[in-house]
């Protein structure tokens, strides 16, 4: 197509969140042993149970081997070359209000378009921002407190609500779950904590913005969300990172717990730095996300838009334990250049009449490799359980890859699983139709791709659906030429 050069220009424009903030950081030297874990725990003034838990996780991690079953290729990671803690330097007590937050940090969030500052807020969104590993500010605390909702940095919750942490931490993703979860359990530094009490409908969207800034650090945040009986909460996380030549490790753990009749909606717009067109740099995004519907008719819904990261390895999953509980997974994942994504979900049906829906849209461009991997498992107790999965892949260009690896395991004769998948090239007929109506090829691609992803975007909270669509357009720049 004649627009090729123009498209290449757009491609060269590349990642727009790739600035670095110069800020004094309190960084632990690279390496990992029990002393480092104790140091992290001490810095965060954690109770003894948590220190002990971290150490158990570390000891377990040392016995584990990095998994290589994902459909991804990367040079070996030297876990001793990573710094496991990096906090922006600040007053020992931490900021008491936004006024005390380092103005440079606030400026960073401004650049990211994070609605951190209350003046500039998006109506009704409470934001917890995690900068490298430390949560820097949480907005709207007041209003949430009135509703009885706890929404605060994880490290704060450890001191203010240790009983909740002790009860729920690791109860969905135990420290022994997998290599990266074990690593996270040993060294996690911060993240968000949400508790919505019985019968409360959280009065606003909750949001966390994650940012990796310091060089040679890993980010290991830990998020724990509990919705008590009849509670409802919608939570959104956004991610970005500076442009750097080396790869950075992001190994987060998210645990969701929904009790009877509770509803948790967790949305992610992931835009970590994907590396350049030669595959230099970019985030290794190795994340464990799992929700457990612990009560009757509980409902957990994951929506993700994955456009960033050099390598993505994540399977937001649902354990449907409560009778009548519902799990959903809606995903758009794009890869361009040398990006690799291996993502999908696990739906484990345990309770009677549990239901799950999986809608996955994969888009591959450039030399990108995109894999859907999903497990639907019906245990013998899952009477009348149902799953429906639809998994579509779109290929743009002859050098990318799209892979679909579903697992269907059914051990109950009254359960039903249906899986459908298709893979095809972006339709030339559709493209031509748009061009013939005077639409530029770039816009035409965006139009077709957003049509392809529509069933997922409609699951996002409104204001983020728009952002996600833009992000998608940016990440696919130069994909058709």
């Amino acid at each position, binding site marked *: 197509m004649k627009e090729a050069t123009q498209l290449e220009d757009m491609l060269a424009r590349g990642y727009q969140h790739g600035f670095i903030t110069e800020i004094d950081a309190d960084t632990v030297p690279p390496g990992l042993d029990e002393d480092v874990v104790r140091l992290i725990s001490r810095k965060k003034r954690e109770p003894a149970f948590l220190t002990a838990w971290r150490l158990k996780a570390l000891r377990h991690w040392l016995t584990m081997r990095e998994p290589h079953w994902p459909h991804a290729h990367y040079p070996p990671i030297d876990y001793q070359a990573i710094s496991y803690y990096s906090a922006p330097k600040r007053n020992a007590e931490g900021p008491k209000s936004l006024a005390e937050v380092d103005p440079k940090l606030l400026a960073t969030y401004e650049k990211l378009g994070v609605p951190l500052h209350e003046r500039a807020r998006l109506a009704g969104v409470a934001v917890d921002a995690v900068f490298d590993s430390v949560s820097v500010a949480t907005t709207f605390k007041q209003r949430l407190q009135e509703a009885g909702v706890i929404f605060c940095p994880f490290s704060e919750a450890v001191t203010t609500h240790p009983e909740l942490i002790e009860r729920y931490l690791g109860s969905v993703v135990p420290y022994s779950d997998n290599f990266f979860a074990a690593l996270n359990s040993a060294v996690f530094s911060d993240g968000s904590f949400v508790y919505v009490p019985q019968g409360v409908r959280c009065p606003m969207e909750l949001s966390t913005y994650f940012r990796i800034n310091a060089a040679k650090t890993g980010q290991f945040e830990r998020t724990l969300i509990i919705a008590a009986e009849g509670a409802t909460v919608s939570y959104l996380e956004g991610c970005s990172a500076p442009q750097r030549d080396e790869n950075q490790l992001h190994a987060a753990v998210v645990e969701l717990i929904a009790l009877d009749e509770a509803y948790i909606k967790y949305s992610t717009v992931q835009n970590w730095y994907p590396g350049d067109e030669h595959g230099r740099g970019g985030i290794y995004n190795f994340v464990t996300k799992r929700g457990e519907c612990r009560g009757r008719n509980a409902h957990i819904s994951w929506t993700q838009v994955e456009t960033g990261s050099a390598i993505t390895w994540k399977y937001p999953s649902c354990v449907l334990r409560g009778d009548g509980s519902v799990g959903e997974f809606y995903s758009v994942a794009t890869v361009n250049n040398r990006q690799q994504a291996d993502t999908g979900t696990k739906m484990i049906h345990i309770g009677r009449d549990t239901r799950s829906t999986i809608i996955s849209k994969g888009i591959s461009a450039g030399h990108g490799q995109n894999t859907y991997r999903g497990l639907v498992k019906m245990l013998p107790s899952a009477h009348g359980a149902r799953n429906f999965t639809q998994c579509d892949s779109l290929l*743009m260009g002859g050098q990318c890859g799209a892979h*679909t690896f579903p697992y269907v395991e059914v051990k109950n*004769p009254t*359960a039903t699983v249906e899986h459908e*998948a298709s893979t095809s090239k972006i339709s030339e007929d559709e493209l031509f139709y748009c061009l013939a109506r005077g639409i530029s090829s770039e816009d035409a691609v965006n139009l077709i791709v957003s049509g392809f992803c529509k069933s997922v975007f409609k699951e996002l909270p409104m204001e983020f659906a728009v952002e996600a669509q833009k992000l998608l357009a940016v990440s696919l720049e130069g994909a058709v030429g």
Partner: protein
Amino acid sequence: MSAAVEQLRSEFDTVRAQLPGSVIAPERRSRAIAALCAQGLPSAREENWRYTNLRILERARFAPVDAHAEAALAQLPETPAGFARWVFVDGLLRSGTAAEDPGFSVRSRRSLPAALAPAWPLGSDLPEARLALLNEAFALDALAIDVHGPAAPAGIELVFVTASTAQAGTSYPRVHLRLAAGVELTVIERHLGAPQTGSLVNGAMHVELGEHARLQHYRLQQSAAQTTWFDTLAAELSAHAHYRLLSIGTGAQSARSTVHVRLAGAAAHLELSAAALADRQQSQDMYVLSEHLAPDTRTTETFRGIASGRGRVAFNGKIVVHPQARGSDSRQSLRGLLDGPEAEIDVRPQLEIYTDEVRCSHGATAGKLDENMLFYLLARGIGAPLAQQLLKWAFLEDVVAQIARTELRGEVERALSAQMNAAAMQELC
């Protein structure tokens, strides 16, 4: 598994001197055993073996059965008209005569002087295909079928009977089938066994299809109830070759078949239809890899499995479209039916695609009978047990209806109804 590997190596060392070099050259046997020992025997921890019952490998006697046991050959179904039949008992050729014709040759390699035996093609190097190495190391005989021209019979029937127990050793049926360019052939392959015999079978088959060759290959796995049956089938297709493989698995205690098809020539086409039934504590597991290596290649896969009792049916179908395979097309329809509170169905349709000029789709379902269909039949006065059997029957029909030969289809239908305990279904035949 390391104890099993030890056992394997020591058994090999004991019998290696007696293994016929004309079937497989001694160096190749040694290489096979070395490769297998290095990789280890398959284990349930491996992705593509997790649905297979591998326990028997821990206490197997790997040395080949080397005695002509008496088998109940009288029970064999009639040879279809125009077909030539070869019968193996415990992996050893028992009847069927060598054919030497310019257009058609069938030879037992064991009967040949080593120097005359043509080179055996290299098998699949997939880790999933490594039980073929075991066959390569221990096979006592192999049938080499070469078809060049029209002199060939209408079809070939290969009958594999097991008569010895696993304690007497493993049986290693081995076949190499080559169709030259433009040749058409039908092969019927049957696996049977003397009842009450718990045999261990580890077969290997290699199929090569020349350009525009067409092979219609029926495999009926009706091994005895106690048998453990492993099989590895590797096929290589040249341009415009068409391979129709139709497999019906009803027998054995535990069956695992591994199929690796390479669509190496442009417009080569694999059409695979498979049906499997597992009841009691049976397990039926099939792994099929279809590799698209050339432009305009096609794969069509249909699988229907029914698990009843405590049976387990697994189908793992992987399709890889390599960058050069532009214009490829693949379709998979995999469906499993559960018919018992302790039954299990595992289906995995997998797509691995490295080019954009493709059309690939798959559908997979696992579950119970369609309630709308069931009610429709009830509303016509048909009783629930019959209605269920009818629908199970209809479920398998997508595969069974692909059997072009009427007499064979009738036979398969009778076997399926016997297995499903659905005598009434025979009216349908």
